């Protein structure tokens, strides 16, 4: 069985960290941080004068304050920075009130809009965050300020957790699910169940009928894309349109979503899972500068 660095099973996504090779934090005037404690993953982002310096992306454990600390420690690992070198930190996500070292907690909706504005540029107007256990549709202006939002955290259809259930069922690594679902000659009908639990039973039945894994995944990915499109209809989609969160890395869902909406997606070379923490770090910097100005 394939395992990642920390020994987790093959269906789980891989934890990661990154440090900018070009930035020297010692030269920075304001070091700001953002920690996004989500239901499935926790990210810590450190920015130096508004430039992305380092981040970590880990699984959230059962203890939110500890998850926040672990993510922050991992992000700062080998950078020479410590928590004392960070001037301001903003916590966001489900566990935002549980970030012990945060100056302020800000809703993840505002942070995702701000983060996407940084990642994809100021032309982004609609954002779809497909997270671990919820799905958010956001409209924002050129400064990344939220104009409208809608969150669905009651139903697991369209979430990363739903995709994990399928990766587990088929024994396919979550990172490979998207590409694999595109390896079909003909698009199969989407699974009819909107509920992840019943969609999984339906998929098990399809496997018994002799469907190959690729076809079952294609069927699920298109069902997920369709499900999210109906959610987006409520607030509409404006160009440019960007997807953040873990599912943004799943080409199988992203491609089908873009096709169904008949829209081109904004591109980024950054990790789409850090959008919330990135926005939080940007807010932290703004808050610190405001505080300094007012003395």
């Amino acid at each position, binding site marked *: 069985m394939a395992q990642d660095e920390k020994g987790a099973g093959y269906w789980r996504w891989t934890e990661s960290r990154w440090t900018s090779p070009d930035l020297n934090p010692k030269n920075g005037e304001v070091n700001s941080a953002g920690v996004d404690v989500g239901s499935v993953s926790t990210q810590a982002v450190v920015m130096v004068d508004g430039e992305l310096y380092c981040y970590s992306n880990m699984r959230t454990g059962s203890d939110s304050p500890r998850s926040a600390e672990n993510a922050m420690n991992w992000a700062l690992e080998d950078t020479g920075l410590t928590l004392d070198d960070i001037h301001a930190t903003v916590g966001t996500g489900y566990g935002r009130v549980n970030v012990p070292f945060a100056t302020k907690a*800000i*809703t993840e*909706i*505002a942070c995702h809009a701000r983060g996407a504005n940084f990642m994809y540029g100021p032309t982004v107007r609609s954002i779809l965050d497909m997270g671990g256990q919820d799905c958010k549709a956001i*409209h924002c202006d050129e400064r990344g*300020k*939220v*104009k*409208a*939002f*809608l*969150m*669905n*955290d*009651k*139903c697991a259809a369209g979430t990363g957790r739903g995709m994990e259930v399928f990766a587990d069922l088929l024994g396919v690594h979550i990172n490979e699910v998207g590409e694999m679902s595109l390896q079909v000659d003909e698009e199969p009908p989407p699974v009819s169940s*909107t*509920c992840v639990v019943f969609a999984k039973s339906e998929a098990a039945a399809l496997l018994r009928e002799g469907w190959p894994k690729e076809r079952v995944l294609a069927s699920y990915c298109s069902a997920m894309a369709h499900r999210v499109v*109906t*959610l987006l209809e*409520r*607030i509409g989609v404006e160009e440019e349109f960007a997807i953040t969160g873990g599912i943004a890395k799943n080409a199988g869902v992203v491609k089908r979503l873009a096709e169904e909406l008949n829209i081109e997606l904004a591109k980024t070379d950054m990790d789409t899972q850090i959008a919330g923490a990135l926005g939080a770090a940007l807010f932290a910097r703004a808050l610190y500068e405001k505080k300094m100005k007012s003395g």
Partner: protein
Amino acid sequence: MQANYGYKDGSGDFFIVIDTERCNGCGDCVEVCPADVLELVEDEFDFEAETPVIAVKAEHAKKIKYSCAPCKPAAGYTTAELPCVKACEPCAIDHSW
């Protein structure tokens, strides 16, 4: 800012839509809601805002269809006659169902 609180599930769309630009933070809707669904909160999307805004309480957001049921058509209400909608002078509240 248009805030949609609620959810969509197999049985339909259930959202309370609040226009935070129109909301003046008077709190009249909080007073009249028989299910205690609404609350006044700090505007988390506009740090410059001087007045609080209305939001749906987190514990009601995932069961709003049931929380709001006593004021729905079966009980003789149209959307315009809902206590919260009627009480809101600046017309900042709407229901999707």
